[in-house]
């Protein structure tokens, strides 16, 4: 037996790449549903030419439990705790979107203090959602564990605040039609202020750690580019839309709640690539801190719930309403039709992360498989909301 000895020339030849070896031949791979970087039970059927993605079809429904039908079979108030389970990272904003829609449907006013509490909790939610998203994204890129734990350390402080206010860390079930469920005392507000004051320090550290990192830049810049025209037509909302340079923030456009009272800027991206989407979260956290710094000292005393609203046997008048807010992941809307009964006749959730997945294929085409994970991670999806 004679072993083949490789010549120097053979070793110096450029390596045979996958793409040239499988030229023209497509390999179909099913990515997910059980894969840590699909952020839950999400599947993509990918056709690969070598390592290059030529086709991508998302597959949904592994977590489908017909949330909308369950909402139609229960009372208006009964759906409130169930909205926590949509996007389980941001139960406070889910509550707010639902409460806002019902308030539009029934014409309910919200007292001043409750509006402030809502803004404070929504912005805290945005802080912890964006922080953990950055951690997860770095995890997807191979920075296993450490950045995620830094983010989770901050998130945990905010979740502790939620727990002491609502009794639950993630499933808060906090808002009610015409107000909030529990009042925040001065000690709670002082604690919140302390956490908000220290948050920029974490941001400085985190940005220094990741955003200048050579590997992060190489993995994200010019990856998954999205044009503003396509983004608008595909209904993309939230940080992902603003990363393309479209100035559309529902907090500014609709001015729901008491957002017009606060001074904050809307960060915009230039290129619409993954790096911009990543930066967008970091910049938005700074603006959320700004809003919190204004809202926490200003909060007035007073009732936290409108005394005219009857929660038991609540029956809004016949009609329909669509209410939407700027949730951390994008536009979260609820469309409700009332026939005058105790249950909604139609209960529809407009989930931002589901609709943001519309252009997943467009963003991934021509990139290598490893980039698919990064692009998917930068969309920021939660399957509880995508599949409902």
């Amino acid at each position, binding site marked *: 037996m004679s072993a083949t000895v490789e010549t120097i020339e053979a070793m110096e030849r450029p390596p045979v790449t996958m793409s040239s070896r499988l030229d023209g031949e497509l390999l179909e791979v099913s990515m997910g549903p059980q894969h840590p970087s699909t952020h839950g039970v999400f599947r993509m059927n990918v056709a690969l030419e070598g390592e290059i993605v030529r086709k991508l079809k998302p597959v*949904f429904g592994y977590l489908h439990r017909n949330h*909308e039908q369950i909402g139609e079979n229960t009372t208006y108030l009964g759906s409130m705790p169930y909205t926590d389970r949509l996007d389980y990272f941001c139960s406070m904003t889910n509550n707010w979107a639902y409460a806002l829609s019902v308030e539009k449907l029934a014409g309910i006013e919200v007292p001043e203090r409750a509006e402030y509490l809502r803004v404070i909790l929504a912005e805290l939610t945005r802080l912890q959602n964006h922080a953990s998203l950055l951690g997860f994204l770095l995890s997807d890129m191979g920075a296993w564990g450490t950045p995620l734990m830094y983010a989770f350390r901050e998130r945990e402080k905010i979740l502790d605040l939620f727990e002491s206010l609502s009794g639950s860390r993630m499933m808060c079930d906090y808002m009610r039609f015409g107000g909030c469920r529990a009042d925040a005392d001065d000690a709670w507000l002082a604690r919140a202020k302390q956490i908000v004051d220290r948050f920029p320090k974490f941001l400085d550290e985190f940005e220094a750690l990741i955003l200048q990192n050579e590997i992060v830049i190489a993995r994200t810049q010019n990856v998954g580019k999205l044009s503003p025209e396509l983004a608008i037509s595909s*209904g993309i909302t939230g940080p992902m839309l603003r990363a393309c340079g479209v100035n559309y923030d529902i907090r500014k456009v609709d001015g729901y709640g008491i957002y017009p009272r606060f001074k904050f800027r809307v960060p915009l991206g230039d290129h619409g690539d993954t790096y911009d989407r990543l930066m967008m979260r970091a910049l938005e956290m700074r603006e959320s801190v700004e809003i919190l710094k204004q809202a926490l000292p200003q909060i007035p005393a007073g009732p936290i719930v409108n005394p005219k609203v009857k929660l038991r046997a609540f029956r809004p008048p016949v009609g329909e309403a669509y209410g939407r807010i700027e949730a951390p992941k994008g536009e979260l809307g609820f469309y409700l039709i009332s026939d005058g009964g105790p249950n909604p006749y139609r209960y529809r959730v407009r989930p931002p992360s589901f609709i943001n997945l519309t252009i997943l294929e467009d963003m991934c085409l021509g990139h290598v498989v490893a980039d698919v994970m990064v692009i998917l991670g930068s969309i920021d999806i939660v399957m509880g909301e995508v599949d409902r």
Partner: protein
Amino acid sequence: MESLEQIKNRAELAVRGAKIGIVINPGPSQQSTLLIDNEHAVAVATFLRDHPALSFDFCSNATGVDWLDRVVKKTTKVKQIVDGVEKEVDQTTEEKVPGYLEAVYHLYSMKLKHGPLIIRMRTANRTDDVRLRSLTPVWRSAELQEREIFDLYGIHFDGHPDLRRILMWDEFKDHPMRKDYEQPDDFEWEPTPHDEVLERAKEHYAPRPQLDGGENITSHSDVATKGR
């Protein structure tokens, strides 16, 4: 934003033959709707998107609604001669209003930052004529949402690039968001069935007098066989 009447008039002028109605929303939200006929839906939608004063470039939400067949009772006063004397008598007539499926779209303008404009389309009935024109060629954001409407409500969208089930599996037969949908009878054994579950359990399992003993079971089995 212009009023619904103005938008309606503009669209009717621009798209020849379009029949547009206004559905009034009686609730306090003041969100009334334009009802668009199926034939000219794509033309009207394109007009709404492209007209510079409207430019509804962002279709936020697309969803379905199911309206069942209804019976409307009307009471009219009719003069009748009763026992030789003319009297006014109430007469009730029943009119059957056929049901339909609806697709509702919430439009906003990112350019001019106004909205929402709500448009809706209706199918002819709920059974055999459930086709509507797809608005995905106008707004790409309707792509997944129309697939969802097709899946859960059973509206067929003509012109949709990839109309498949999305949340339910491909082999699934019915449309679970319809108001007359009945859940399949997939009974699961429970160690302590009670109330409704107990009744269903009786239907699912034959009585076992030799195991459970006693006349009690026989009387139970009577109930069970009656139910079958």
